[in-house]
C-alpha cells in the first residue's frame, strides 16, 4: 500500500490539508468562509490522491466494544462511509447501524475542540501544555491511594499504557465501568464453563433457547451473532434453527423468535429448572434438586402456560445440539447469579457444553486483553468518592453521571473529589462536572489496538488507524495524552517514543514474530498490519472446565406484588443508543426503534391490558415514580411486554452532550434503585419497582408506524409460512 519509510502521519497531513480545500468543491452544500480557504485546482493534484477516486483504509469500529473491523472509504482526504472489513471473523464485512454512524461521531459538530479548565460556572480554553502542567501540579503530593481512574472498556496497548501510568502514580485504583456489561453472566459462566465468555456457536445449534439475551440487538457482539443467526436459520442437516426467546419485555431477538415467551420478571431461573425437570434427562443431585419444580408450580410462578413448558422441553429433547443463553433480562436481579446459573445448568443437562458452547480463544498477551467493565466497579468507586477518599479523579470513555442509577447520587459524590479530569469527546454530563476537560480525537483519527472481549474464530488484535487528518486540530489521542502524562514522571523510560504512534509501532514491530510476521522485515510487517487492519493469531484456547453443579443454587420465590409500587421497571437497551454515549449522532436518533418505531424521544412500553386497567392510551404523558424519584414520558401500548412490567429505553434524557441529544426524552436510570446482585455485587438493572400515573397531558407519539398499529389487513405485505418441515439449505 505504501512505500516503506514513508511517514504515515505526513501522508495524512497532506491528505487532510487537501481534504479541507477540496471539500469546497465536493458538494453543493459547503459553506465557504471568505478569504480563509483557498480554491485549489485539480490541475495541481496532491500526491496519493486522485480526484473522484476513493481509497479504502482498514481500521476498527469503536462505537461499541464488540470489536468489528471497518473499511473506511476516503475521498479527497475525507472519510465518507464505513463498511465492514470482510477479513474480520467477527463482522465479516458487515456493519450495524450504530457502527455506520461512527462517521457522525467523527464529524459531530458538538465535539470538544480545545482543552477546557473550569473557571467558576464556565470553561476557559487553555493550552495543552498548561493542561499537562496543571495535572502534574494537582498530582503533586497526592498518594496513589487518593487517585482514581475511571474508564470504560480498555484493551490493547492503551490498556498497557494506562496501567503503566497508574503504576507510575502508585495507584491501583483503575475502575472499569461498563453500564450495560453482562457482569453477572460472566461470573456465572466462569463457574459453569470455566471461562467468562465462551464461544456461543449459534450457527451449529438447532434450537436456541435464550433467556433475555438480545444477541441480535445489543448483546455482546450483535453483528457477529446476526451472521450466525442467518446461518442458524438456514439450518444444519436440513433442519432450520428454532429460536425461543424467554423474556418479560420483547427485544429485537424476541421479535425474531419462533416463539416468544413472556415471563414474570425475575422468574427465569425457575423456568430453567422447570424445563430441566420436564426434560427428565437429568440425573443425580440435579434431578433431585429440580424435582420440586413441577409444571404446575413453575407455570404458576412464572406465568408461562404448562403447554409451553412441555413444547419447549419436547423440542429441546428432539433437536440436538441446542444452545441456551442467559442475557440481560435474566441477570438483572438480586438473585441474577442464581438465574444465570440455573440457565447455564440447562446447557450442561442438554449436553451442549463443548458442542455449541465452545472454548474461546484468547490473545496470548494477557496484558492486552480487555479490562472488562462492570457495574460493581462503579459501586466501589462511588463508595470511595462518597467517603471523600479521592483527591484526583480521571475519567475516560464513561459517563457515570448519566448512567449511574439515581440512587447512587454519583454526581454529588463526584463533587467530593478534589480535582476531576475528563478525557472526553463531548461535553457530556460527566465532563460537565469535571475541572479539566481534555478533548479527544475520534476513533477515525486515532491510533490504537483493540482486543475484543468476544472472539469469533481464533484470536485477533484489531488495528485502529487514522482515516483522515483531525477534523479539529487541537484534539489529541488518548494514547498521546497518557504518554505525555507518563513522561512527567518517567521521561527517561519513554523518551524514545515521540508519540503514541511510535510507541504502538515499536511495540508491535518488536513482537512481529509472535504476531505472524517473523519472515518479514519491520516495515513490511508494519505496512501489512496497517493494510489488513487485523492481526490474526492462533491464540490460546482455555479449555472449558466448569461442571454441572447445582450446589448453592437457590432460587427465591417470585417477589410479592408491592402494593405501593406494583410494576417492575425494565430499563431496556435500544439497539442504536445503547448506554447513551451515541445519542448525539442524528442518524441514530432518527433510526426508529425496531419494535415501536419511535424516534427522537423516550417512551414507556406498557401492555394494553394493563394500560386499559390504568386508563392509559397511547400518547398519554405518564409519571413513573419509584422510591428514588419520578420521570415523565409518553405511553406506548405494546403487547410485547409482561403486564406486570413497564419498560423505558436507556440512552435518552441527556442534559448535555450536544444538539441532537440534549432535551430529548428521559433517562430511566435516574429513578433506578441501587440493588445489587448478591453474589457478584453487580447492579441489578431490573429490580426497580414503580407506579405509573397519568398526568392528564397527551401527545402524538412520533413514530414511523401507522396509527392503525402496523397490521397488514388486506394484501400480503410481509409474508410468513408456518411449517415444521422446511429445508432452507437447499435454497440458493
Amino acid at each position, binding site marked *: 500500500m505504501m512505500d516503506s519509510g514513508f511517514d504515515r502521519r505526513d501522508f495524512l497531513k497532506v491528505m487532510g490539508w487537501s481534504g479541507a480545500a477540496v471539500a469546497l468543491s465536493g458538494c453543493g452544500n459547503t459553506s465557504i468562509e471568505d478569504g480563509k480557504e483557498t480554491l485549489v485546482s485539480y490541475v495541481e493534484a496532491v500526491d496519493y490522491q486522485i480526484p473522484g477516486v476513493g481509497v479504502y483504509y482498514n481500521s476498527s469500529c469503536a462505537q461499541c466494544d464488540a470489536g468489528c473491523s471497518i473499511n473506511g472509504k476516503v475521498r479527497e482526504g475525507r472519510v465518507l462511509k464505513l463498511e465492514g472489513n470482510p477479513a474480520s471473523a467477527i463482522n465479516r464485512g458487515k456493519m450495524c447501524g450504530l457502527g455506520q454512524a461512527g462517521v457522525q461521531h467523527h464529524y459531530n459538530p458538538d465535539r470538544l475542540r480545545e482543552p477546557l479548565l473550569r473557571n467558576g460556572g464556565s470553561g476557559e480554553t487553555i493550552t495543552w501544555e498548561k493542561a499537562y502542567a496543571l495535572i502534574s501540579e494537582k498530582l503533586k503530593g497526592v498518594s496513589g491511594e487518593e487517585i482514581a481512574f475511571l474508564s470504560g472498556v480498555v484493551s490493547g496497548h492503551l490498556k498497557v499504557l494506562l496501567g503503566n501510568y497508574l503504576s507510575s502514580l502508585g495507584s491501583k485504583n483503575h475502575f472499569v465501568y461498563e453500564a450495560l456489561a453482562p457482569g453477572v453472566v460472566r461470573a456465572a459462566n466462569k463457574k459453569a464453563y470455566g471461562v467468562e465468555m465462551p464461544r456461543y456457536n449459534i450457527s451449529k445449534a438447532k434450537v436456541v433457547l435464550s433467556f433475555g439475551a438480545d444477541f441480535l440487538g445489543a448483546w455482546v457482539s450483535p453483528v457477529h451473532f446476526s451472521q450466525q443467526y442467518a446461518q442458524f436459520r438456514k439450518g444444519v442437516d436440513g433442519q432450520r434453527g428454532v429460536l425461543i426467546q424467554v423474556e418479560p419485555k420483547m427485544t429485537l431477538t424476541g421479535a425474531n423468535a419462533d416463539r416468544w415467551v413472556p415471563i414474570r420478571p425475575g422468574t427465569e431461573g425457575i423456568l430453567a429448572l422447570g424445563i430441566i425437570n420436564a426434560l427428565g434427562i437429568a440425573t443425580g443431585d440435579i434431578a433431585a434438586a429440580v424435582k420440586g419444580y413441577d409444571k404446575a408450580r413453575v407455570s404458576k410462578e412464572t406465568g408461562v402456560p404448562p403447554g409451553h413448558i412441555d413444547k419447549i422441553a419436547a423440542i429441546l429433547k428432539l433437536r440436538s445440539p441446542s444452545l441456551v443463553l442467559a442475557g440481560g433480562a435474566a441477570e438483572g436481579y438480586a438473585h441474577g447469579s442464581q438465574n444465570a446459573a440455573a440457565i447455564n445448568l440447562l446447557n450442561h443437562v442438554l449436553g451442549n457444553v463443548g458442542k455449541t458452547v465452545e472454548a474461546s480463544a484468547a490473545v496470548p498477551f494477557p496484558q492486552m486483553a480487555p479490562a472488562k467493565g462492570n457495574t460493581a466497579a462503579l459501586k466501589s468507586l462511588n463508595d470511595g468518592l462518597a467517603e471523600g477518599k479521592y483527591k484526583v479523579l480521571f475519567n475516560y470513555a464513561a459517563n457515570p453521571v448519566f448512567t449511574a442509577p439515581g440512587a447512587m447520587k454519583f454526581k454529588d459524590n463526584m463533587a467530593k473529589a478534589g480535582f476531576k479530569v475528563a478525557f472526553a469527546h463531548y461535553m457530556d454530563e460527566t465532563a460537565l462536572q469535571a475541572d479539566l476537560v481534555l478533548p479527544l480525537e475520534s476513533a477515525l483519527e486515532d491510533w490504537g489496538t483493540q482486543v475484543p472481549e468476544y472472539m469469533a474464530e481464533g484470536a485477533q488484535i484489531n488495528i485502529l488507524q487514522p482515516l483522515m487528518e483531525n477534523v479539529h486540530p487541537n484534539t489529541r489521542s488518548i494514547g498521546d495524552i497518557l504518554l505525555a502524562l507518563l513522561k512527567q514522571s518517567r521521561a527517561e523510560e519513554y523518551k524514545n517514543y515521540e508519540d503514541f504512534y511510535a510507541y504502538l509501532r515499536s511495540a508491535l514491530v518488536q513482537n512481529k514474530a509472535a504476531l505472524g510476521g517473523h519472515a518479514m522485515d519491520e516495515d513490511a510487517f508494519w505496512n501489512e498490519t496497517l493494510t489488513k487492519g487485523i492481526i490474526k493469531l492462533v491464540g490460546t484456547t482455555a479449555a472449558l472446565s466448569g461442571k454441572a453443579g447445582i450446589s448453592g443454587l437457590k432460587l427465591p420465590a417470585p417477589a410479592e406484588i408491592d402494593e405501593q409500587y406494583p410494576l417492575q421497571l425494565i430499563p431496556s437497551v435500544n439497539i442504536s443508543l445503547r448506554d447513551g454515549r451515541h445519542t448525539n449522532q442524528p442518524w441514530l436518533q*432518527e433510526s426508529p426503534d425496531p419494535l415501536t418505531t419511535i424516534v427522537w424521544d423516550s417512551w414507556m412500553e406498557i401492555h394494553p391490558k394493563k394500560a386499559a386497567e390504568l386508563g392509559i392510551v397511547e400518547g398519554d404523558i405518564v409519571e413513573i415514580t419509584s422510591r428514588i424519584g419520578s420521570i415523565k414520558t409518553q405511553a406506548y401500548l405494546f403487547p410485547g411486554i409482561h403486564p406486570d412490567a413497564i419498560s423505558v429505553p436507556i440512552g435518552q434524557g441527556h442534559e448535555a452532550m450536544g444538539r441532537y441529544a440534549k432535551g430529548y426524552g428521559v433517562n430511566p436510570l435516574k429513578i433506578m434503585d441501587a440493588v445489587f446482585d448478591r453474589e457478584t455485587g453487580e447492579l441489578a438493572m431490573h429490580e426497580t419497582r414503580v407506579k405509573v400515573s397519568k398526568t392528564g397531558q397527551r401527545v402524538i407519539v412520533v413514530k414511523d408506524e401507522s396509527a392503525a398499529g402496523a397490521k397488514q389487513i388486506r394484501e400480503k405485505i410481509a409474508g410468513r409460512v408456518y411449517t415444521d418441515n422446511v429445508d432452507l439449505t437447499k435454497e440458493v
Partner: protein
Amino acid sequence: MSISNLLENWSKFRHTHPVDDKPHDPYKWAMSIDLDACSGCNACSVACYAENNLPVVGKEKYAHGQVMHWMRIEHYWDEDVGEEGGREFPDQGAQFLPMMCQQCEAAPCETVCPVGATNHTEDGLNSQIYNRCIGSRYCSANCPYKVRYFNWFNYPTTDNVWPAEMVQQLNPDVTVRGKGVMEKCTFCVQRLRAAEVTAKSEGRLVHDGEVQTACQQACPTSAISFGNLVDQESRVHRQWRAQQVELDKDKQAKDDHEEPSELRGYRILENMRPYPSVMYLERVRESAI
C-alpha cells in the same frame, strides 16, 4: 426530419417497454430479500443515510411525516394480537419488512409525472431526475408502496441537518437534493454506474458480487441479495428462478398450485401489475413450538 424519423422508426416507438417484447440486455438490476433472515435491525437504513446523503429531519418534521428514509424497516404484528378476543401477546414475534422503491418494471409513478422526471432506464431501474422534477408529487400519489420521499424543505440549508463539519461526510457521488423535488431509493445507482463503466472499459460485463448496494453491504444477516437478473449465474437470478418468480408476470404459475410448497418467493402487490424488481422470501415460523 421529425416526421420522417417518426415514421421510419415507428415500430421502435410502439414497443411496449420493457415487460413483454423487449427484455433487458445486458443488465436488469434486481433484488431479493429473505425475510426469514431479516432481523429488523435498521443497519440497512442507516447505511442508506450514509451512502445517499439523506437528511435527518429532526423530531418535529418526523412528527409531520416528513422523514426521508429511502429504506424503512416496517414491522407487522399478527392481526389478533392485542385485539379483544385475540392473543394477549405477539408470541410469534413481529414480521419485519425492509421497504424501499421496488424499481417496478411498469411503474405507476413513471407515466404520471407531468415533466417526465421519472423514467425507466435501460438497465431496469426507475430513475428520478432531480433537476427535471417540478414537485407535482403525482408520482408519490400514485405509488402503491408509498416509498417516494419529497423534499418539503431545503434541507441543505436547514439548521442542524448538515452542520459545517458534517458536510464533509456527504457522498460526492450523490447529489444533495434541494427543496421541492421528489427522491427515492435508486438501488445505489452511483455504484451501479461505476461498476458498469469499469466493466465496459475492460470489455466485459459486471460480474456477480462486483457491485453491492449500501443496504446489502451492511446487512448483518446478509438477508439482501442484489445483482443482474439477466445474468444466468447471478445469485439473484438463481434465487428468482429457484423460487419460480418471473419478472413479467402479475401472478406466478406456482401460485395456482393448491398444495403447500417450500417456495417462499413473492412480490408485494404483484396483482396490481407494477412488476416490482424486488422479490421477498417469506419468513418461516416453526409450527412445532
